[in-house]
């Protein structure tokens, strides 16, 4: 039986509206990043970058050349918005955005990953085939209908975010301790009027349970014609509330805008028709819109894409131990706002010859944000240990008037981590030589076991 018919068609309008919104948000996001001075702070200042496994070869450009990918993002997102050299724009945006995200996992956000994925999908979809500069200047033939899986794949991508985020919340800390939300909400205890609510446990419980149920089911309510409007109201309330309470920047707005993809083709038609008349686009003559042969490949590619998207968030099942503690298979899985970790990682260079020790002040090598992220994440701890090994391997130190040559030091760390408000626990014992630990995707059995 065929699960989904290739020949099913739908209006192109939802895709075009999606393109407009995504282009505008991407432009705003890139501009905001530049204006806030984050390029310098995150991609020029640091001495060390925590690359992703398999992508450590992705390195930042020298000095101010790091502004280049951001300028490319500005131009290409404008290209997406205007539908101007659309496919090139989408490709350039995907590449420049993903390049920046791959540089340093310190700055990893689930929603950045989401933007990368959506940009990737957009490369392959003809979102410029209506109401675009490309059609205006006859660079592209106008189309009124598209295979409906073009829209479905975007819906799938959004559904992924919500449903997996919802599943991730099905854990005892979230549901039965109301953590980390209690910790985060109580910090708003001085807010006028609402503050009293936020300092109480039951508020945190209400938020936790509502958030979980919302994430799990919102997509299904959005898909249904009769519940769509009500559920979209919840989308707005939910995201505005999180945006108001937590420092999550543009992402509430991204989600509010992009979930419109669940609305009916007629809804989007009305928007596009309105826009076309405002901008004096000529009314479209309906053409014969046969599905082109090449979309068959695209169709199978999207099935593969969907399968991968389902496997990646589940990969944590392949690892033993506590997911929150070990963070093996944690990223790229839509675990959004799921836990609160705070760590203290003190590193020591041990010189086997003198049996002496050098305690490292992390701020010498790391930015505050890097130090904060590294202190709780085992893979970053290994990367940092390897960096220190390189720094101190065969170095001569001047101490007082004497010179000491450190030949082959071992690297150790005392690491304590607080997870979701529990008392700090030891994560890494000082006896372990971290420079000997490989950075790979295998289970790290040498981490101290988590005691709930």
């Amino acid at each position, binding site marked *: 039986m065929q699960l989904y018919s290739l020949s099913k068609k739908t209006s192109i309008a939802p895709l075009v509206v999606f393109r407009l919104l995504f282009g505008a948000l991407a432009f705003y996001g890139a501009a905001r990043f530049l204006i806030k001075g984050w390029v310098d702070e995150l991609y020029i200042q640091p001495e060390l970058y925590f690359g992703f496994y398999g992508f450590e070869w992705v390195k930042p450009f020298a000095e101010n050349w790091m502004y280049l990918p951001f300028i490319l993002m500005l131009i290409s997102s404008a290209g997406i918005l205007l539908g101007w050299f659309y496919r090139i724009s989408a490709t350039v945006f995907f590449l420049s955005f993903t390049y920046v995200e791959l540089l340093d996992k310190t700055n990893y*956000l689930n929603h950045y990953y989401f933007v990368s994925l959506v940009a990737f999908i957009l490369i392959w979809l003809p979102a410029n085939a209506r109401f675009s500069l490309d059609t205006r200047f006859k660079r592209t033939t106008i189309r009124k209908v598209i295979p409906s899986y073009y829209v479905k794949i975007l819906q799938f991508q959004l559904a992924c975010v919500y449903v997996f985020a919802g599943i991730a919340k099905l854990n005892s800390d979230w549901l039965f301790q109301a953590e980390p939300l209690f910790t985060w909400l109580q910090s708003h205890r001085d807010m006028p009027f609402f503050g009293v609510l936020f*300092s109480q446990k039951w508020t945190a419980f209400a938020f936790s*349970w509502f958030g979980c149920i919302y994430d799990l089911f919102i997509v299904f*309510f959005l898909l249904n014609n009769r519940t769509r409007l009500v559920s979209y109201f919840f989308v707005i309330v939910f995201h505005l509330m999180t945006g108001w309470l937590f420092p999550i920047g543009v992402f509430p707005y991204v989600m509010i805008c992009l979930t419109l993809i669940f609305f009916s083709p007629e809804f989007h038609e009305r928007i596009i028709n309105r826009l076309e008349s405002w901008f004096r686009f000529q009314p479209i003559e309906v053409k014969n819109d046969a599905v082109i042969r090449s979309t068959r490949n695209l169709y199978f590619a999207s099935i593969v894409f969907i399968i991968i998207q389902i496997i990646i968030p589940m990969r944590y099942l392949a690892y033993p131990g506590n997911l929150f503690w070990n963070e093996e298979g944690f990223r790229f899985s839509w675990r959004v*706002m799921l836990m609160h970790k705070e760590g203290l990682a*003190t590193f020591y260079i041990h010189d086997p010859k003198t049996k002496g020790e050098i305690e490292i002040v992390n701020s010498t090598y790391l930015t505050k944000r890097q130090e904060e992220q590294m202190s709780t994440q085992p893979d970053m701890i290994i990367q940092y240990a390897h960096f220190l090994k390189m720094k101190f391997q065969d170095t001569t130190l001047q101490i007082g008037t004497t010179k000491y040559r450190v030949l082959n030091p071992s690297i150790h760390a005392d690491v304590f981590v607080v997870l979701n408000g529990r008392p700090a626990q030891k994560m890494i014992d000082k006896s372990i030589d971290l420079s000997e630990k490989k950075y790979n995707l295998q289970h790290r059995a040498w981490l101290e076991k988590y005691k709930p």
Partner: protein
Amino acid sequence: MRILSSLFILVFFISAFSCKKKDKTNPEDTVNFQKREMLTHTSNQIILPGLTNLQTAVDELNSSWGLFKSNNADASFLQLQEKWEKTVLKFHRVKIYEFGPSSAVGFRAALGTFPTDTAKIIANSGNSNVNLALLVNLDAIGFPALEYIFFRQNAKSQLTASNELQAYVDKLILKIVNEVNTVHSAWNSSYGTTFSASTGTESTSGFSLLINEYNKEYELAKNAKLGIPIGKQSLGIPQIRYVESPYAKISLLILKENVLALRDLFQGKGANGIENLGFDDYLNALEKTSLVSSINTGFTDIENDLNNLSDDILIETQNRPGQLDALYTKMQNLVVHLKTDMTSAFGVLITYQDNDGD
């Protein structure tokens, strides 16, 4: 489907209101503790009196200096040294608060950078146009520079003999007086109120700044005043060059004052000795009572160790290195509680970048 959507709304309201019953176990303080009241207390009873005390001490130091210049007497030189010591200790009561007006003048660095560069001090004193506001002169100004001039060997005779050096001291003290006055009047007028009202979680809020500077100051005390001198960053070989107070020889006394200031802030103990709202009360409101007692015990242990040591770290690195090491370990253990347990319980943000919490 309509049933489903009503169910959805229903669940929202049920989860919003029904859980109310569940958690009646925690008493009112969870709800009643207000950060604003704690910040107001901190501002009015700890920071501001601390700055006033520092201002008074600096004024006294200034007049002792004037007196000594006028009579060159041994007694007035002794008094000058005493006033220096008193002022340095008062400075370590307020050094924590490096935000707002303090960070605008770079209080911590301008008044307390050590080790001081003795050669630079002598060179600077020979240059009547020297600009002490330059970054390069940070290690030739402030209390450590005055210490060198007032406490080195034959300090008195060298000072009386050199008009240039006297003029340099004039400049150093004037700079300190101005900076203390600036910070004090800013706290006294508008900033104190701004600070108390700034209870948010964003990294620029008064509360976040306070917590972040608190952690920074604690680690600075641990590393710069103890760890580095006893060789924690140099294969265990003591680094005498980095001792804070090599001339007046009160390094450990300063460290103690620094630790006590941090403890008092934690406990909400005002300059008048009366305890009121502090971090401990906030933690208690969050039902972290065992954490409060761990931290209090940590501070007490550190204080006891410091009481058993002499004021001079130089002597102790030779006589009782084991005890210094034990003290360091205690300070290190307390960092875990302060920087991870306490900071995480407060839910403040260390960085100001967007974050979705993972």
